[in-house]
């Protein structure tokens, strides 16, 4: 029997008058890294935003821990253990690094000290910058902060939207390592990436998304070796 923390069934979403997601089904097994790759505008971000409750679905089911969460408000969804690290990092520029972390744990009533320590262990640079305004951090540091902020709510499932966007290759590799580390701590990850090569290397399972539909799925290795994926996303000739 499969143990899926999240499964999406036949999801349709329209966004600004355009149907962006056309009947997508996918499964995220507990404790794994699942990636969703595809070109710009394929509907990947819309899927994540729909799961997070920022966008309303037209029809379909989003089953999280055996409950349909479609139509729940974002704050309820966050409270149940799903967080989204949004595209473009979106840290709060006028808040300090520490405040950004604290606001990540906004819904928690217990002490945040332990988690802050944990995030500082994962990203030692953030500890040095603790009192700095987040707007003054570099792109890579902001991405670390965005991930750290998401961890503060003690999520069971973290969704990441294009964490490599606009970052130097060396920093991207660091971020990918962090994703693996977080996953080893037991957090399930749903990763959306345009950088298919990187994403598939760390993912247990992957889906290829094209103009609102899933066209291909398989384990990370399978997709990496798939001829059509190679041609379309990995920039290698057949």
């Amino acid at each position, binding site marked *: 029997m499969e143990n899926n923390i999240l499964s999406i069934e036949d999801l349709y979403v329209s966004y600004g008058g355009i149907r962006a997601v056309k009947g997508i089904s996918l499964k995220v097994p507990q404790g794994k890294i699942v990636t969703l790759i595809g070109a710009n505008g394929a509907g990947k971000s819309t899927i994540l935003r729909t799961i*997070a409750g920022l966008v309303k679905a037209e029809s379909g089911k989003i089953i999280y821990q055996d409950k349909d969460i479609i139509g729940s408000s974002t704050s309820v969804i966050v409270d149940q253990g799903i*967080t989204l690290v949004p595209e473009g990092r*979106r840290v*709060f520029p*006028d*808040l300090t690094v520490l405040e950004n972390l*604290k606001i990540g744990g*906004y819904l928690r009533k217990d002490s945040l000290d332990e988690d802050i320590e944990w995030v500082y262990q994962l990203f030692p640079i953030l500890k040095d910058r603790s009192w700095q305004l987040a707007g003054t951090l570099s792109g890579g540091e902001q991405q670390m902060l965005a991930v750290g902020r998401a961890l503060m*709510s003690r999520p069971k499932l973290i969704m990441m939207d294009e964490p490599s966007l606009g970052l130097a290759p060396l920093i991207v590799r660091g971020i990918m390592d962090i994703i693996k580390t977080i996953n080893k701590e037991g957090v399930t990850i749903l990763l959306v990436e345009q950088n298919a090569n990187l994403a598939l290397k760390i993912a247990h399972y992957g889906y290829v998304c094209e103009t609102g539909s899933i066209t291909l799925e398989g384990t990370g290795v399978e997709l990496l070796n798939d001829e059509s994926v190679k041609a379309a996303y990995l920039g290698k000739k057949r």
Partner: protein
Amino acid sequence: MSLTTFLQHSLTGISLGGSYALIAIGYTMVYGILRLINFAHGDIFMMAGYFMIFAMASLPWAISIPLVIILTVILGVSIERIAYKPLRTAPRMSIMISAIGVSYLLQNLATYLFTALPRAYPEIPFLKKIFRIGDLSASLVTLITPILTIILVFCLLFLINKTKSGMAMRAVSKDFETAQLMGIKLNNTISYTFLIGSFLAAVGSILYFTDRMSVTPFSGTLPGLKCFVAAVLGGIGSIPGAVVGGFLIGICETFLVAFGYSTFSDAFTFILLIVILLFRPTGLFGEKIIDKV
């Protein structure tokens, strides 16, 4: 002008500025979070005046003051829920027009219910007590207003900078969507902002009208506009800016009247607005726009 008269006018000006500052904070906070100029704010202030008249008709002042504050807060928060919340995703101009609509609605409602004749504002005995320092004399409200304003401003700054709900407000004012992703309930935070703004408007109203002695349905219009100018002068979105702007306008206005230019005191405020918009549109303490890389 002798020193005593100078001090006397300064005191009056600072006091008037204090009331302006309290109202200006309401404009600036709502702007900070919704990017909306809440044109109804001046009329909420006017309604608080009427609430006081009716409360004091049958109740002692010690009960009337909290009652007026509660009623004003309910009014302010309900206006947001009814007239602004449904327009959350609409273009910004729609919500602005809705605010103008609410402003006229309140004025006309007040005219219909209470007639346009000025109604005497009740006297709160202890605020009307006269005190003297040397040759200087004024009613107690003149002295209390600036002190109370400063205390409230410090409480407010503490609330915004040091508490969890303050942090939520700052987050919402920067980025609606990401704030929601943190689990912050947008509507609660926005209601909270209107609650604070209306509370300060109610306090400002009590202090302002105690000095003015009468209320009409249009009493809120001019002070409302002046406080809006104060908020722009200080840099809209900035609370310290609104306070400084409020005091500046209050003091300038009083001295213009003292020098015999009372005809021009209102014109001065709006000339000031034009000058700021021409030369420093972000105001004295306005948010600088930082380019994000």
